[in-house]
């Protein structure tokens, strides 16, 4: 495609195609969108983040998609979100109001090495691609590598496991780069990390059964978000804290962001309920993105309306 209007949002794309999309989107919308490179993956690929901004020194909302590389519908949805933001800015009053006061950061491919590997070598790859000393098994589960209950139950210490936590917290550059960005920004108000599949919207904690101090507010907002989501196609989501809804998981992304003071920390599990798993047909991409966008808007609007 020569521009982002010609991009096929209803198809899965390689990393190079997504990176080209990012560059086109920035070139087409120079006053709204810029690209930030927050670091490099283990194999040296840039960790690209789209910044949607209409002013300086604004509080921010972070969205990342597809930290587990095989969850292709997630990265595809992220691409659709990016186009949706530039299309709706100036047209949709709610999004316009948000962007007139806050920045949105979107990392479409959070684990580029893994994503590239799913296109070239192993479609079912989940982890990063960093070798593990002394083992033939490669990679760390980047959603067990954060410094929140790191090393506790719900993560593996065995490098060949799909949920290997890594040798130490933030050992993966894909994780450390976000950690550094979050700390240096210092004013993120919402952090949404998007995965698939299982159809869930989850809030902290995963590493402990102790309720987070904002649980009642996060629970009510999750209910609103999944109700909005279901209004489009009737897709049913469950919601709650990670440990109560799915399983105990230590070292997870949003447990860390919440402990950093980002109150509106959520993680999604997008479609489907398991008929296809990670090989969800491409004709499901746009419906998935559309319905998820409604939930994202609910979270972003609540964040906008409830400054802290």
């Amino acid at each position, binding site marked *: 495609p020569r521009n982002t209007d010609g991009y*096929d949002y*209803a*198809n*899965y794309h390689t990393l190079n195609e997504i990176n080209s999309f990012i560059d086109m989107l920035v070139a087409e919308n120079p006053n709204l969108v810029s690209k930030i490179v927050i670091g490099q993956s283990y194999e040296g690929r840039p960790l690209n983040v789209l910044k949607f901004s209409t002013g300086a020194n604004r509080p921010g909302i972070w969205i990342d998609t597809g930290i587990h590389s095989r969850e292709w519908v997630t990265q595809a949805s992220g691409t659709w979100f990016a186009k949706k933001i530039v299309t709706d800015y100036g047209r949709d009053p709610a999004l316009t109001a948000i962007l007139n006061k806050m920045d949105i950061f979107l990392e479409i491919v959070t684990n580029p090495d893994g994503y590239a590997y799913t296109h*070239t*070598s*192993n*479609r*079912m790859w989940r982890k990063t691609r960093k070798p593990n000393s002394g083992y033939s098994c490669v990679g760390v589960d980047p959603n067990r590598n954060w410094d929140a209950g790191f090393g506790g139950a719900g993560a593996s210490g*065995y490098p*060949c*496991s*799909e949920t290997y936590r890594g040798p130490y917290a933030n050992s993966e550059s894909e994780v450390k780069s976000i950690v550094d960005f979050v700390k240096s920004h210092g004013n993120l108000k919402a952090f949404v990390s998007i995965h698939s*599949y*299982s159809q869930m919207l989850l809030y902290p904690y995963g590493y402990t059964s102790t309720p987070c101090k904002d649980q009642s507010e996060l629970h009510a907002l999750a209910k609103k978000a999944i109700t909005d989501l279901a209004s489009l196609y009737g897709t049913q989501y469950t919601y709650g804290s990670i440990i109560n809804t*799915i*399983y105990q998981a230590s070292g997870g992304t949003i447990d860390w962001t919440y402990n950093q003071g980002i109150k509106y920390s959520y993680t999604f599990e997008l479609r489907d309920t*398991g*008929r*296809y*798993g*990670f*090989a969800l*047909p*491409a004709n499901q991409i746009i419906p998935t993105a559309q319905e998820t966008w409604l939930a994202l808007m609910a979270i972003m609007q609540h964040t906008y309306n409830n400054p802290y």
Partner: protein
Amino acid sequence: RENFVGHQVLRIQPTNEEQISVLRSLAEKHDLGLDFWTEPVSVTKPVDVRIPFKVLQPIKIFLLENDIQYSIMIQDLQDLLDEEERVMKTRSAQ
């Protein structure tokens, strides 16, 4: 390229805590090469697991011996991936 010919994804429905415990012990046997897409947590959540062809038969026997119900969610994963690739190529040509 890694080949998934004959790999099946089973949807396992544990009915009690004992079965969940059995499935957890299965998940810890890394040499089997099982890939848990959803993990054994509670009787309300089905467990989806990709099983390589070479251990498919013994795993199914193991589940039957432990009276654990399952259904085949994906009959042959490689078929699904081939279809995914075919659709991508077709769309790319368009």
